[in-house]
């Protein structure tokens, strides 16, 4: 039993909770994964096609069976179409999330969103100015309305270029124009990808892959960027603040409410409700010491970044958090919420609430949040959670939480540097910091839980590479203790000195998955101050344990923006060596960056170090041999 748990996760709370889950006979994502293995080779290689109803088709990679689908598509076309649709789905998910925030912004402007407001009016002004909106002398609500309108325009655009691509270095934009991958509209590129991959449209596997890059850019410099910026406007731009992580953040003597998913629209209202004195009094009257709101996955990251709310775990921990028996209510919005959760919760007293009009789950109660009703509904639900506290059975919270520091928005990082990126650049130039790497993305039961994230991050900081992280990777690194100022001890001498001087950890939590755009923006700022392109910088990206289509889109917009990106799990593309070659080698000639796949994080770290040192060399900086 112990042995199995150790095979599945490197985290202590994960291991102990897996053992508890086994005792409680709770089926987890790992059990279901084991039941699925071996997985379908056609699908793993991207060789199965379900796009039209002449199919489904599959190509025999051994050449014995069919070499073409019914329509005549060969392995290259089928693999490229499938990958294109993964990008489209990922971009759609981020962008629809962004749209929901723009709708809240519009509702705020109309005074129809009680409880919501403009938390960062300066950012509102700055972003509005980028959209060419007159802000002088206008009340924030009027500016918000105009900005919401203009942003909606980016979704169904009639323009040649998205508004926020202007934040990218000029050289990069020129390259996008030249190669024909400049994103035009957020919905447009996704829609066009679905069109191109319809039977009988784009059957050039190269042009399909190029459009996949454009589609991904419409996410990174469009949907996700809007999601991040509007969240900052509505709920505040993150500033460094302390928090705690792992299952130990649950409190045996308090009402525990967990928010899970991706969108801060619901969780922000819950936070307000959890902090209202009358409800806290109610909790005390019911025998609880207070109300403890904690997060999972990116909804958790959103709250952690802005309010220092504790974080219970990442993707693979979600079932195990319920298995503590200490969760009185879990509210979910959308994305990465396993449909198994309702069943898991049915073994405990946990109330499961789905909140989005577009996301339902078996075994959950659906209580829909809209800007108009959110404040009142949040209060009702927190009261219900308080009532549920009394129905708790035995509780198992086996670990103490780990402290961490979050909230590193670009603004906060520049603030810590004294307003300009120059100190960071100087440290890079003189070699104290070799470069920077984004460690991002999900967990996947194919890789030992958090092993990829932690192992890679440790190697990078040991080698004086500053790590910027988001999403589930960020939670893993926080749990591993990399996000306190003292963690500078783990860093190499150069990075350690810089971190100690600034009082920052060597791993900076930049937020949720949509917040990967903060990494893009930081890279742009660095490129601009060096007068070069992003692809010239000693930076890299990695997703050591990714699973989701959103991660495919993120990886693609990183690469299309000029960032070399190393993936852990292999995407379903090995059915076409042409596609593999284009993504790993050919793209270098097109966008100045490419992908690598390396499931072993130790080796991935070497790839990243080698890349960073080679970029240093090209910039004329001192370079080490790796």
């Amino acid at each position, binding site marked *: 039993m112990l042995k199995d748990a150790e095979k599945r996760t490197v985290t202590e709370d994960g291991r102990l909770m897996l053992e508890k889950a086994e005792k409680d006979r709770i089926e987890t994502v790992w059990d279901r994964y084991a039941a699925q293995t*071996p997985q379908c080779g056609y699908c793993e290689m991207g060789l199965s096609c379900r796009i039209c109803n002449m199919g489904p088709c599959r190509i025999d990679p051994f050449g*014995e*069976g069919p070499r073409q689908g019914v329509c005549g598509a060969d392995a290259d076309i089928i693999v490229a179409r499938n990958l294109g649709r993964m990008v489209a789905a990922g971009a759609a998910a981020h962008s629809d999330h962004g749209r929901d925030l723009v709708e809240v912004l519009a509702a705020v402007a109309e005074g129809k969103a009680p409880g919501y407001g403009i938390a960062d009016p300066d950012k509102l002004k700055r972003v509005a100015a980028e959209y060419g909106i007159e802000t002088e002398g206008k009340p924030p609500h009027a500016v918000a309305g105009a900005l919401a309108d203009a942003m909606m325009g980016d979704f169904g655009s009639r323009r040649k270029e998205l508004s926020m691509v202007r934040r990218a270095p000029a050289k990069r934009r020129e390259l996008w124009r030249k190669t024909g991958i400049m994103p035009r509209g957020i919905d447009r590129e996704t829609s066009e990808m679905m069109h191109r991959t319809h039977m009988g449209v784009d059957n050039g596997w190269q042009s399909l892959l190029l459009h996949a890059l454009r589609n991904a850019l419409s996410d990174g410099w469009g949907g996700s960027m809007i999601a991040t910026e509007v969240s900052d406007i509505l709920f505040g731009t993150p500033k460094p603040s302390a928090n705690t992580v792992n299952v130990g953040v649950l409190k045996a003597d308090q009402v525990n409410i967990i928010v899970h998913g991706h969108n801060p629209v619901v969780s922000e209202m819950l936070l307000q409700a959890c902090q209202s004195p009358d409800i806290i009094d109610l909790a005390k009257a019911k025998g609880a010491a207070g109300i403890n709101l904690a997060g999972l996955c990116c909804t958790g990251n959103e709250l952690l970044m802005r309010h220092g709310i504790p974080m219970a775990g990442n993707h693979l921990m979600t079932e195990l958090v319920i298995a503590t028996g200490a969760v009185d209510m879990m509210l979910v919005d959308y994305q990465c919420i396993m449909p198994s959760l309702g069943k898991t919760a049915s073994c405990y007293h946990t109330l499961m609430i789905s909140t989005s009009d577009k996301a339902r789950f078996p075994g959950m109660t659906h209580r829909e949040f809209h800007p108009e009703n959110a404040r009142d509904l949040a209060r009702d639900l927190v009261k219900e959670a308080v009532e549920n506290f009394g129905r708790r059975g035995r509780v198992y919270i086996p670990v103490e939480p780990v402290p961490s520091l979050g909230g590193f928005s670009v603004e906060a990082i520049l603030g810590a540097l004294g307003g300009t990126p120059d100190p960071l650049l100087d440290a890079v130039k003189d070699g104290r910091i070799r470069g920077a790497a984004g460690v991002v993305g999900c967990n996947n039961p194919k890789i030992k839980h958090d092993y990829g994230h932690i192992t890679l991050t440790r190697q990078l900081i040991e080698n004086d590479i500053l790590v910027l992280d988001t999403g589930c990777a960020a939670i893993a690194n926080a749990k591993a203790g990399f996000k306190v100022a003292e963690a500078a001890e783990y860093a190499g001498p150069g990075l350690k000195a810089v971190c100690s001087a600034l009082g920052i950890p060597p791993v900076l939590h930049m937020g949720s998955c949509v917040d990967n755009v903060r990494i893009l923006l930081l890279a742009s700022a660095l490129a601009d101050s060096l007068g070069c392109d992003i692809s010239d910088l000693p930076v890299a990206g990695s997703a050591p344990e990714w699973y989701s289509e959103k991660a495919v889109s993120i990886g693609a917009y990183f690469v299309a923006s000029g960032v070399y990106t190393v993936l852990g799990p292999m995407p379903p593309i*090995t059915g076409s060596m042409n596609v593999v070659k284009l993504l790993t080698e050919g793209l270098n000639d097109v966008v100045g960056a490419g992908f690598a796949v390396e499931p072993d994080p130790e080796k991935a770290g070497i790839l990243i170090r080698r890349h960073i040192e080679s970029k240093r060399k090209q910039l004329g900086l001192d370079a080490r041999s790796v």
Partner: protein
Amino acid sequence: MKQVVVHPERCVGCMQCMLACATAHSKTLHLFTAVREDPLPKPRIHVGAGIHGEGFPNRCRHCDPAPCMLACLPGAISRIPETNTVVIDPDTCINCASCAMACPFGVIRYHGDAAAPPGKAVAVKCDNCTARQKKGMVPACVEVCKSGALTFEEPASALGRKTREVARSVSRDAGGEPIAPGFALLNAVKRSQIEMEKR
């Protein structure tokens, strides 16, 4: 002793067994690398389509007496009694195709193989995954078949189960709930499509 038992009524035609079989007989034993080997490993089990488009996994029956063995003049075919496996020795095989002609099931193919001398095409067929069985593993096709169309068990127990299933299905008032209703529905649709072709 345990044998690979085929239950064709459960085959969904996903051809996973073919991939797994070819991979199990490759040099590198991993799908992603096996497809880049030379010679390209090939499966010893072949999924054919029945008249209604249903899948049928066709593999060596390891007959006793085995027509292929009787037909092989150079004596390349023999039986491993421990696993009741009819095997072909690639070094002795002269690629004369007599065995294939003698085999009533058409399960013998000719091509280069990781186990054969380089450049030589030989007769190749199911070897009951002898190499895997020696390591205590079940045959690759069985491991990979998610629909239960291939099992590794005592033939007597498989037949006993089959008898019980048939007996229950002919009971009056049995209601005849199929094992996998969705699959049965799919097959019914396919069947009626084929029937329509005949009108």
